[in-house]
């Protein structure tokens, strides 16, 4: 309460009995009820607020349990000044990006793209980030052109159809939802590749971060991992023939690593206008990290090595990306290597 009053710059008002009651009775049930079933029966505590005939002011003392909110709810009928609720923290998402031709190939067909915006105004826009890894395929420079066109077309469409409506406050059903806009952007990139690089193709794995929500669009065998304190989780599913064989219990993951069909994809940009795009949304916990990488990294560096490098041997995402790329190169660097690492700040 006092903190709240300090924010408001108001003198401490007389303590009403409700204040104390509210503090003592901050038991909250947020378990979503299923259907019409009454599940609130565990909420058997006494009602805190009883009408106080002497209280002429409207009091809302117990409406927000203090422990569940950053600020108290006093002043329900006096709208809160914006300053009171805008987070004053200057901690932001951090990211690193590293890409390398590797030790064997003579050109880098991977494309990497990072875009990050943070602002502080009363309008309180969340941080926005767009991160792309595209791994091109095809001879005669077709692969690098396909991945370049893809990241350019995809990025410009995401910025136009997601980022700009967001900062201009157009949150309504006339705008496509974020996942739909993401999938549309993949299709636009796909059409460009088909039209201009008929012999080339590319993977596309992209993450749009808004606040702590990650929207992921994915085609091919580049990957996204979510790394938390205890866990490294692969979020994307490789659209490769060997992965499908693993899913069908036809081969083991160990056999897949050296399988002759290891590089066969059943889904990629630049193949057909009908393209199915995987789209998932994940909320990133505080202090979690998200890694986007091409198969040049994950083919040569094991999951637990990735985890170790990121969590225990790097102080900044850029350092982690550089170390991961270097590690793949020490293993032979048989392919182009790309890594982008995002780090969501703690709360």
């Amino acid at each position, binding site marked *: 309460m006092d903190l709240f009053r300090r924010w408001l710059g108001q003198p401490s008002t007389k303590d009403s009995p409700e204040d104390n009651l509210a503090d003592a009775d901050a038991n909250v049930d947020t378990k979503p009820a299923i259907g019409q079933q009454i599940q609130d029966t565990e909420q058997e505590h006494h009602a805190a607020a009883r009408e106080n005939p002497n209280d002429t002011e409207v009091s809302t003392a117990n409406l927000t349990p203090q422990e569940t909110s950053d600020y108290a709810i006093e002043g329900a009928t006096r709208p809160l000044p914006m300053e009171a609720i805008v987070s004053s923290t200057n901690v932001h998402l951090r990211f690193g990006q590293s890409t390398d031709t590797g030790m064997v190939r003579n050109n880098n*067909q991977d494309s990497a793209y990072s875009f990050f915006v943070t602002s502080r105004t009363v309008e309180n826009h969340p941080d926005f980030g767009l991160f792309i890894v595209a791994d091109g395929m095809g001879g005669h420079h077709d692969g690098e052109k396909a991945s370049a066109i893809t990241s350019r077309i995809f990025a410009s469409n995401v910025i136009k159809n997601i980022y700009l409506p967001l900062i201009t406050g157009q949150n309504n059903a006339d705008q496509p939802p*974020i996942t739909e806009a993401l999938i549309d952007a993949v299709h636009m990139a796909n059409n460009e590749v088909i039209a201009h690089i008929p012999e080339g193709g590319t993977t596309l794995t992209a993450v749009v971060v808004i606040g702590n929500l990650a929207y992921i669009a994915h085609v091919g065998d580049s990957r996204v991992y979510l790394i938390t304190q205890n866990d490294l989780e692969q979020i994307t599913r490789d659209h490769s023939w060997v992965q499908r064989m693993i899913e069908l219990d036809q081969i083991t993951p160990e056999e897949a690593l050296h399988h002759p069909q290891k590089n066969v994809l059943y889904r990629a940009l630049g193949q057909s206008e009908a393209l199915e795009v995987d789209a998932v949304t994940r909320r990133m916990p505080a202090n979690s990290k998200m890694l986007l990488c091409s198969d040049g990294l994950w083919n040569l560096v094991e999951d637990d090595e990735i985890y170790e490098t990121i969590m225990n041997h790097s102080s900044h995402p850029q350092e982690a990306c550089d170390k991961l790329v270097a590690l793949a190169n020490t293993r032979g660097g048989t*392919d182009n290597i790309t890594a982008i690492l995002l780090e969501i700040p703690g709360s």
Partner: protein
Amino acid sequence: MSETQQIAGMQGNGREGGTLQANTILQTRYKILGVLGGGGMGTVYQARDLNFPDAKRLVAVKEMQNTATNPALREAALKTFEREANILATLSHPAIPKIFDFFHQNDRAYLVMEFINGNDIELLLSKTKELPIDKIIDWAIELCDVLDYLHSQTPNPIVFRDMKPSNVMIDSYGRVRLVDFGIAKTFVDGGKHTMIGTEGYSAPEQYKGDVTTRSDIYGLGATLHHILTRQDPRMAPPFSFGERPIEQFNSQVPRPLIDIVERALEFEAQNRFSSCAEMKAALEALRKPAIDLPNLNLTTNAAGTAAWETDGSSAIEPKWTFKTEDEIRCSPAAYNGIAYIGSYDTNIWAINIESGEMVWKFATEGGIASSPIVDPANKLVLFGSDDKSFYAVDARKGGTKGGYPIWSYATKGAVKSTGRIAHDHVFFGSDDGFVYALAAASGRFIWEYELSAPVRCRPYVTNELVIVGSDEGEVVGLALSGERKWTFRTRGNIIAAPFVDTIEGICFVGSADHSMYALDVGSGYNSWRFRTHGAIISSPIAHEGLLFFGSTDGNMYAINTQTSREKWRFTTEHPIVSSPTIYEDALYFGGTDQYLYCLDLNTGKERWKFKTNAAITSTPCIADGVILFGSLDNTFYALPLVG
């Protein structure tokens, strides 16, 4: 034989239009009229054969451009093409288009073929809603026949390699014709990654370049699966037909036909039919009874199912029913052995769940569309009335001696919104356009928030926010202090209650604009939407990663909360406005077709249904081993709980 089916280095040159203009004359004989189609394999033109000046003889001309840059390779490609054309020209089968001529000029090779007046099956699928099963069986038999013909060629069997709906045409006589012959593009080597050709229809061994006649059987199975389920395999991972059982998408398909398609789709080639002749025999056996005794199997099936259904519903006897004096539009609540329901007869009724006897009733001065809710902390039942007030009465006794409520709060419009108890407060909307927050125990006014249109949906309350929508489609996230945090506008009324998945932080909002929206609960940003074909009035609930809700398009949907992908839908004949209730592994809801349905939660399959005498808009409530719901037939029902 494989090289006869592939023309290395030869590919279609353009996506549309081709390189030839209309009226171009090839070989002083074929006058180009226009483009019939194009794609990966090359452009196909319609042309007129000028050697028959008095008859309008139409032909199809397929053009392939030689893209190989190395002269030796170019020469080899042409040789392959010629060899291919020669083989095709010797084939003679009613389902194979006749080859009239082939030649090459200007680095391009041309194949002149019979012009087929008809549509390919892919087009038929997009143009029709349903194809008769008998017709599909006939096509399958004809396809087996032509594939068997190709596989019987000597010295080498010809494998078609590219069975898919777009390569099968149905001509103007209704006969099957196999097109896009032998130009099967299977592997295009792209350096580091190898891409596959026709994803979705090809057999597993085809990806290893190991092609046999049984690969065509798989392709035919895949084609039939697509036709029967209307699920495009190109949109799914390879070899995932087993994850899309035919019966789940098309209840018309007889079991023996499903068995045939599933055998054709066996992962291991040796488990499929040994030949197309064997598969054809199986299909013909299927057709025979239909000719001798039309639809015998299907009739028996239908009767069997119907009988089971009747049994299913007649087996359920209500534990009790309670007749009120007008329609029951709202949903019941239950607490401590008592069920509460509002009726348009202006009363709230309290019924003993065990005996079905009335405990008390409480009269308001208007119809009741708002559902009663229970505040266990204060032992109150709270509800709104069309008389513009919101009431709280004693859960055990109803009104006081003089028939008064514990408290009531007058708004300026009918209260059709159902209240929500949270944080010791009650939140509800009114037709006067306001959302109200009152202290639950006393009815003391805390705050109001004005939306510009009637608020009829039930607010959802989290630890931080009150989420509510209006009749103008506006959805707001209000801090518990009543201050707005975010707004999202849909294009239709919000009548369904929002639902929040508090773990993932997603708020689901259904709108009369036909869509279900997923919003980030913190910002209101729209993550995805799922479109139905009717207004969404039914309130969604999420359970283990799935979101369940009904639509006035007659369907109950189960969709993935993360991806919005549909897991199942259950179709009724009439709009669904009742909201689903989940209990254990079953989902319960009412239909305006007068039935209460019980579905399997995981599959969406009907377990039983129970018929009332009018539409059900009420959402079932499950308590004390009974299913409670009201119907527009004025009756309050209690059914024994059977999953």
